[in-house]
């Protein structure tokens, strides 16, 4: 959102200053509607972004199949990577947050983390350059799945009555305050959790993409279409783009981690007896 408005401002600044090459197009949200490649108008309409998602799913599966096909007692090569990949989620998220409750959710959380990372990282991969998660569909789906899982597990662990009471009527609050607390708790737990999960991931991926398009678009514009000394602006613009590419690697990883971590936290708090 911020990136978008910056882009709009920059565009207006550029046109005011009289550089009227007309070749610079600030990125807009149309970046995220690439249009259909296949099956247009059906439920299975396949955009370029969907195709990238399927490709990344295939690569991810290929990686894990190769990593675990030998399953040697002493791991070598790709098996090391595969075990590190599974171990990372196990140690950093599942053991850390869920402890003894962890094994039940290991498949779900590990799959989610690695698919999210695969879908986030496409934002900086050559030829792809767009995150699958910068379109709301997938973040929304995973957030709904998280919502269903943590509510289902909360009810399973505590029973529906106790689960709702734990969440809506937290212990240790004077009775009249529930007038205030209960609606807040209801909104924050049952409505805002999936919304924030979705929007945090989506907005990060969108803004990252817009920043990269902005800087590399500007680099190309200044280098090719502007005249004289203005061509030099392409240099800082390129380095900004490069820096943000590195930054996007971090963000891709971080957002996958946060999404998975928060899901684990929600499951943990839902399945706790009191909180």
């Amino acid at each position: 959102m911020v990136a978008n408005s910056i882009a709009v401002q920059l565009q207006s600044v550029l046109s005011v200053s009289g550089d009227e090459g007309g070749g610079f197009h600030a990125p807009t949200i149309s970046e995220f509607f690439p249009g259909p490649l296949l099956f247009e108008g059906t439920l299975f309409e396949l955009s370029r972004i969907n195709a990238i998602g399927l490709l990344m799913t295939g690569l991810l599966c290929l990686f894990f199949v190769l990593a675990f096909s030998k399953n040697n007692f002493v791991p070598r090569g790709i098996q090391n990577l595969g075990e590190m990949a599974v171990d990372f989620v196990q140690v950093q998220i599942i053991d850390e947050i869920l402890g003894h409750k962890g094994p039940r959710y290991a498949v779900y959380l590990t799959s989610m983390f690695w698919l999210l990372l695969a879908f986030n990282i496409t934002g900086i991969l050559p030829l792809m350059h767009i995150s699958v998660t910068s379109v709301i569909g997938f973040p929304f789906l995973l957030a709904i799945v998280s919502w269903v899982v943590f509510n289902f597990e909360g009810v399973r662990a505590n029973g529906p009555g106790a689960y709702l009471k734990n969440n809506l009527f937290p212990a240790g609050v004077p009775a009249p305050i529930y007038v205030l607390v209960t609606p807040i708790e209801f909104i924050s737990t049952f409505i805002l959790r999936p919304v924030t999960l979705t929007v945090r991931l989506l907005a990060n991926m969108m803004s990252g993409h817009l920043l990269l398009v902005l800087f590399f678009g500007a680099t190309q514009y200044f280098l090719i279409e502007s005249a004289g000394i203005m061509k030099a602006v392409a240099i800082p613009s390129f380095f900004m783009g490069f820096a943000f590419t590195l930054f996007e690697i971090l963000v891709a990883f971080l957002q996958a981690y946060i999404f998975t971590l928060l899901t684990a936290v929600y499951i943990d708090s839902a399945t706790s007896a009191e909180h």
Partner: protein
Amino acid sequence: MSQWIKFASESSAEQPSVLLPAIYDIIWGGLSFIIVLVLFSKFVMPRMREVTAERTEKIEGGLARAEKSQADASELLAQYREALDSANKEASEIRAAAQAERIAIIDEAKKAAATAAAAVTAQASSALESDRARIATELRRDLGVAATDLASRIVGESLTDDARANAVIERFVADLEKSAGR
């Protein structure tokens, strides 16, 4: 947020909002998620558990084996020590017994020697005694015979004749010496 939605829909009128999930995005994303979930639940996680369990088992088994061989070694050492101790004890007992036996043998030998010596001494002294007694008896008898002889000779010759008497005495003594030399 509603402002953003408005902004987003205004900035490109022909596009839907970025906050409106398209059904096909959900379908393709869901398909990917299901594929990955199935892969992890049917393949990756079981394989990971398998190899981890195998490693745990091997490491624990190895540790148990090491502990066992350590225990065996200590037991063996204790056995050796015990055997060595008992051998030493036995040796010293044997030495002490041998010492005692040696002393006993020496004592016995000394006693036997003393007894034998005493017996020899006693025998010798009794032999001497009987010799002495026999000699004395013999001497007494010879002296008696000699005295009788002398007396008869003196009576037979003239006792006044000094020369004769002296000759008789000399003969007597010579006879005596002769009989003693016998």
